[in-house]
């Protein structure tokens, strides 16, 4: 079953690693307008990343844009390092 698209504006503070998000349901026009406004407000702040994403749910965004949610993939290379000195 396919759910309708939902839009989320992610506002990520690189230094504090804090993520805020705003939800727009399926109203991509409202989301795109807000995107431009928030981006403009942060135009000179290097440490703030603003991005408009869409998916069937916020859970999906956590997978597809995981770098805004998870600090690191502890185990990605784990099995290549067995027996290695580090």
């Amino acid at each position: 079953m396919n759910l309708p698209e939902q839009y989320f504006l992610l506002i990520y503070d690189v230094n504090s690693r804090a993520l805020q998000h705003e939800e727009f349901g399926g109203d991509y026009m409202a989301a795109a307008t807000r995107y431009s406004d928030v981006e403009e407000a942060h135009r000179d702040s290097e440490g703030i990343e603003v991005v408009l994403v869409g998916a069937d749910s916020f859970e999906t965004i956590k997978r597809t844009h995981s770098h805004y949610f998870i600090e690191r993939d502890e185990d990605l290379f784990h099995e290549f390092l067995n027996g290695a000195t580090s």
Partner: protein
Amino acid sequence: MMVAMTGTPQLAHSKERVKRAGDRLRGWLLNEVDLTEVELSAELDVIEDFRACHAAPLTRVGAGLRYYVERYSTVKPEGRPVVAQRLKRMRTIADKLVREPGMGLSRMYDIGGCRALFASIDEMRRSVADLERQRRWDIVRIRDYVENPRPDSGYRAIHMIVRKDGFLIECQLRTVSQHAWAELIERTDRRTGMGLKAARAPADVTEYYRLGADLLAQLDAGDERDPETLRRFQALHAQVQQRLGGKETS
């Protein structure tokens, strides 16, 4: 931007005007063109309008991709395939204009981008073949970074550029491990500022992650790990962790 009754976005400006806005922003960023605050603001408005026009076609491509991918991808954490979209950040549009001087803004193909995840290369390839058969799926170009990984970074994925309502949208198809690797690179770049994505990182760090990508690809392909690749990867591990400040344990 104006939206006609059909819901199809219409650019408030010509493609030529969009290209000129991109060229002028690039020139301003490179200190080659003088713009007043008002002039800069006008160019940015044109670019934002062009970006906003991608929202509707991006939504349609994203929904289409989810529909087609559903049949092939077994990555369904909530019973549905993992497909999402994003509209490119103004800052990364600007970065790309500077990085690629020959790129006209009106031809930039990844302002609207989708992403879909697969459990295996086989699932991904079968889905690509299926998409290629769809008459309503207007593929402009496919870049196969699985067959031909990016030589510098080792990045792997299949990128498919499609045309919708006159706008170009990029679809990135990745296996779960290719995606985990790409996200790791995003995080490492953001934390260290090394520029792995832009191929600006120190050679040993670049090689470490490239070898890591090679090893993950061998797992994806069901191959044995190549002993030489593994040896070089392990040999680089300690010095790279030290360079990264010991914060990254993987």
